[in-house]
């Protein structure tokens, strides 16, 4: 699945990349991302996830062709 990250997450990951590991939900996705860069583990716990224009929670079943947006805490304004 395709992963897009924003803001401070770009200090830990490429802005866009293909996730080779299999993740069926957001909890598994967090673990996969933390395996790539363990320094991001705490930040990942405070992130939200979205597919297209909607947030997803851990109940959402991730599909191989999903593009998942990883959203760190907002800091607009």
């Amino acid at each position, binding site marked *: 699945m395709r992963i897009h990250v*924003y*803001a*401070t997450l770009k*200090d830990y990951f490429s802005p866009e990349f293909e996730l080779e590991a299999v993740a069926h939900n957001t909890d598994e996705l967090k673990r996969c991302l933390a395996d790539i860069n363990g320094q991001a583990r705490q930040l990942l716990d405070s992130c*939200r996830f*979205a597919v*297209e*224009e*909607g*947030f997803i929670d851990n109940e959402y079943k991730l599909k191989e062709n999903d593009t998942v*947006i990883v*959203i*760190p*805490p*907002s*800091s*607009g*304004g």
Partner: protein
Amino acid sequence: MIRSSSSLPPVGVSEPPLGVCEAISSEPLDIVELLRNAHHPAAGAVVLFSGEVRDHNKGRDVAYLEYEAYPPLAVKMIHEILAEAKEKWGLQLAIAQHRIGKLDIGESAVVVITAAAHRGEAYEANQHIIHRIKHEVPIWKCEYFSDGTHQWGNNCNC
């Protein structure tokens, strides 16, 4: 009319009376033009908030800011926040526009305008809208300091 960058995904335009601008803009925010579109015959109070780039934060000299957003979701959320506030406070108008890209000191990063029959609702709704935009909408600030370092987020004192 406010323009947005052609590099951004298409963004929705609020139907009047919610707002007449695009919610995310890579161009400087035109506060005068936004305010010009914020008058309504039933509104006796119009409140405009402009969040602007200051030259310091927590004792450090700020050189400039950069804002990033995930526009497909940010635009949708801003429209929902405006619609909810309009309903809750009975506003005649609710407008919000957030800038992205590089901003120099003194530039406006976000504008929220609320118009209501009386000032109480206009002030309260305006405060509510900017609070939710800052804390919920996928928009991020990166501060670039005069010593050459930078820092994402972690800069809200409210």
